[in-house]
């Protein structure tokens, strides 16, 4: 058996610290910060990074992928409705057609491929990191996010006393799911009024989520289930097509907005 290199503990620690610090310092300023590494956030990140943009995804959990590992009721088969199988094809995820227009894939396969695609495109991640607030500039334009470590945020404030840090960016995408955390922060300041979930009509919510994906406030794009919360669209069942396509639309909108900011 070939022996492992003789590397000491301190070299390993130095490698981790310096590698992390280098990336963190580099991404203190980025083109786009996406809050939430679920399917819509990963899709948006992948597409933006593919265009050469510097993209950081902030994720409060250690793991990436959000709910995309599990299809519903703790069962790891994920479903998408036509036409979202196009994304599965792109990712190289096998699926079967359960009924006309309804496709099913293995959650772990689909989720890991999507994460890999985002990484391959050049997206960087700050996991175990919570979004705490927005940075506002230029007439309330969203220009960054304030973040902290998840374990710090999980402890009572009285015993932690660890201040967060701010990351500057040209565009923020709220892909935090039902919570719509970034949009909620703007709502607290009276800058945006969300509508909350509509109570009815689950069947049609996928179309509407994609249709309403876009810039909700200068510098802030909303994607995925956060769209439902923002616009009062019906809560959705356990199917992921709209999340994937909403992420795609969010990336397109971000690219358009960033381009227009360059041209004035």
């Amino acid at each position, binding site marked *: 058996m070939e022996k492992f290199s003789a590397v000491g503990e301190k070299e390993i620690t130095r490698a981790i610290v310096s590698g992390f610090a280098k990336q963190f310092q580099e991404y203190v300023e980025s083109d786009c910060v996406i809050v939430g590494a679920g399917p819509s956030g990963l899709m948006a990140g992948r597409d933006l990074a593919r265009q050469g943009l510097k993209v950081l995804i902030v994720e409060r959990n250690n793991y990436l992928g959000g709910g995309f590992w599990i299809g519903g009721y703790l069962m790891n088969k994920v479903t998408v409705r036509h036409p979202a199988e196009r994304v599965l094809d792109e990712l190289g995820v096998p699926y079967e057609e359960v009924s006309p227009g309804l496709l099913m894939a293995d959650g772990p396969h689909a989720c890991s491929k999507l994460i890999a695609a985002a990484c391959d495109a050049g997206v960087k991640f700050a996991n175990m990191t919570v979004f705490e607030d927005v940075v506002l500039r230029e007439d309330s334009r969203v220009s960054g996010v304030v973040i902290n470590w998840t374990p710090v945020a999980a402890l009572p404030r009285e015993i932690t006393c660890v201040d967060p840090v701010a990351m500057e960016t040209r565009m923020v995408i709220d892909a935090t799911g039902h919570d719509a955390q970034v949009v909620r922060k703007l709502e607290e300041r009276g800058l945006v*009024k969300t509508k909350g979930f*509509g109570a009815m009509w689950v069947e049609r919510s996928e179309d509407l989520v994609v249709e309403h994906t876009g810039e909700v406030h200068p510098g802030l794009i909303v994607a995925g289930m956060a769209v439902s919360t923002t616009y009062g669209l019906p809560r959705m069942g356990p199917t992921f097509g709209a999340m994937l396509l909403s992420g795609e639309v969010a990336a397109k909108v971000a690219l358009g907005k960033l381009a227009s900011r360059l041209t004035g």
Partner: protein
Amino acid sequence: MNIVIYDEGAAEELNTSEIAQYLEERLAKAGVEVRGSPFDRVPADAVGNLAGEIARTKVDRIDRNLSPKTEPLAAEIEYEKRRILGRTQAFGVIYDGFDLVRVFSTVMPGEELRAGFIHIVFTNRLFATWDDRNRRYHLRTSVYGRPSLISTTGLVEAPARPREYYRLKQQYERLGRDPAGLKEKFGNGFLDYDDARLTEVAKGYAMQAVFYHLTGDPFCEDRGCRLYNAHWQEELIFAQLKGSYEFCPKHAELLKKFIND
């Protein structure tokens, strides 16, 4: 009497020419014209404002009466613009039915907003009306006014399906199964999307719009009359497709009287 039928991309299965022919046959003296979308004549510079007005009629919560002060968000207006311009087929928003009629009336030709003209708009928009008795919105198939709106989506969603259907649907969804499989189980017991029976059913609702203008009352209490206000799919199917007569004796007589007068 002039009847104008509009189709706001209501459904592929909806044949408005066939409905127009039906109305012409039943109402011998009426001229029936089929036009395209009610928004075809809206000037380009008025689309934004109209989109905002439509977005304001959106119902956010079924248990809260729509406040006229609710301001739509930019994406809601953009969505409505795309709908007006026919650039999206996506639907699913629920609107306040009476408010929607008010907004649609602004795009009807002014010279035709008078007695003698009946405007019927077929749409796939879903709308609801507020009921003060139980403090909630209820989905509707149609709202009669100037113009009358008939929702092809409402025909599918508003009259309730059998209770057993909803119980099984909930079970299916919990188990991650596609509820579309339930269709076969219930046969043709309810109207569904892509349903070939849609045009035939819609004829009865167009007649309800006509009766609203003729008598002030679009409905009949006879379950076998096409003017019956169905609250269950079973009732809708019976009144529109399976009844032993088309109109009850009272409304058949009124129709005859209208033709002969």
